């Protein structure tokens, strides 16, 4: 069964450093998303991406964040200068042509020290 994969599973970084989180969505999907979940809290939307551009972003997704689909398979989230409060689980999700049913990856646990 196709699934969304994410790398790395864990990332520890120093405050102010750049991190890139990687995702491989399900192969024939067209819509891509990033969400985050601070420990013990609900899942929060960050950004959606369709047709090689951002279709919607949340207030959390400020100028420190960017997304890219550098090739036909990968979808990345970059945080330019990490802050302590960026520590969270980051989930990538993708959906097919109907754009509704979203399948989530296993997540990347980011810890900013």
């Amino acid at each position, binding site marked *: 069964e196709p699934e*969304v994969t994410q790398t790395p599973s864990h990332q520890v970084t120093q405050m102010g450093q750049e991190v890139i989180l990687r995702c491989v969505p399900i192969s024939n999907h067209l819509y891509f998303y990033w969400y985050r979940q601070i420990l013990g809290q609900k899942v929060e939307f960050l950004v959606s991406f369709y047709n090689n551009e951002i279709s*919607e972003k949340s207030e959390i997704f400020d100028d420190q964040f960017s997304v890219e689909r550098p090739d036909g398979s990968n979808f990345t989230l970059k945080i330019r200068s990490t802050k302590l409060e960026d520590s969270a689980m980051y989930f990538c999700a993708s*959906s097919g042509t109907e754009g*509704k049913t979203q399948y989530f990856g296993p997540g990347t646990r980011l810890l900013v020290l």
Partner: protein
Amino acid sequence: QQQVKQSPQSLIVQKGGISIINCAYENTAFDYFPWYQQFPGKGPALLIAIRPDVSEKKEGRFTISFNKSAKQFSLHIMDSQPGDSATYFCAASHTGGGNKLTFGTGTQLKVEL
């Protein structure tokens, strides 16, 4: 208006019992209501979803009941099993919002033997 309110925060059910989790929303533009199951350290996994043109959807032991006029929907888990012990999130999205998912705060379900 974008919030989805979920209750209870935690729930303990005996094996074989019925688990009921409730959600309420305000935004009448929402047109898709999925439920996700999440185990510790894992990504949310889609369980079942409903659109507002039906009042109930059943898949195996899982049933969504939807009340459009009350703007409420609920998840019923019949014959609850210890393996169902997880956190359950309701969510909602609408096409005009880029299909981003707005999640509820989650319910920690524990099924006891």
